């Protein structure tokens, strides 16, 4: 199965097109995929909807996708705090 990165997908969309919405549901790999593309996301994407883990309930092992530990620091770094 070919695996691509979110940044390569976003870079394949012409700059004239507004990326209005990004939704991810990739079984715990959401944070890894979005963190890889954080610089491109800040420039291109206006709204993100994703699945996160909360209250120490982890659906899958071996990946990081916790709201408080992973997502909030990243979103603060990106300058967004609404969720």
């Amino acid at each position: 199965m070919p695996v691509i990165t979110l940044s390569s997908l976003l870079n394949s969309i012409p700059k004239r097109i507004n990326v209005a919405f990004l939704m991810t549901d990739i079984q715990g790999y959401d944070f890894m995929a979005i963190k890889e593309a954080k610089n491109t996301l800040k420039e291109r994407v206006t709204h993100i909807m994703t699945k996160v883990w909360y209250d120490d309930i982890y659906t899958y092992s071996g990946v990081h996708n916790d709201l408080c530990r992973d997502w909030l620091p990243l979103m603060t770094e990106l300058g967004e705090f609404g969720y």
Partner: protein
Amino acid sequence: MLVKGNASGRRNNILQSVKDASSSISMMRLTGAVLVFCCIIDFTFKPKHLHSLRAAVADSTNVLDATKHKNNVSLLDLPLSVKDVAINVGSNIDPIMLADKKYGPCAHNIAVEPIVANKIPFHRQLSVLPAAVSSNPGVMSMRIYNVNGVSSRVVEMGGLPLCLSSRCLLY
């Protein structure tokens, strides 16, 4: 007796050399037959999944080559009229679509779905990319869980299986 003995000896030598020659010829024939047999087996009974695997790896290599050159990426070919885009990574068979009332007919939707991409119904404002998304590009295996791969995820090559039931398949 001597003459006879010499003649019989020569005859024996000749017979022995003829036998050696014939045995070497038969060995050559046998070797040739084995080689031909191996070629026939190789071309006829080669597992078809190897061909599909090679094709998949070639496709993946093309995708990866495209992703390496960020200024010349050919992952998508969007219409020129598109103004807004929604991306749904891991959409399964029902990707989200931008509402027509707000965005109109110039909006487009991109669904990235590795398992059931071929089951997504056609829509003129939807492009489907049959690939997985992760932090690093490459080629990985996927464990398929549940109906339509609802809970599937990528696994590292050679890793332990995460699903032990009979409904867990390697894609």
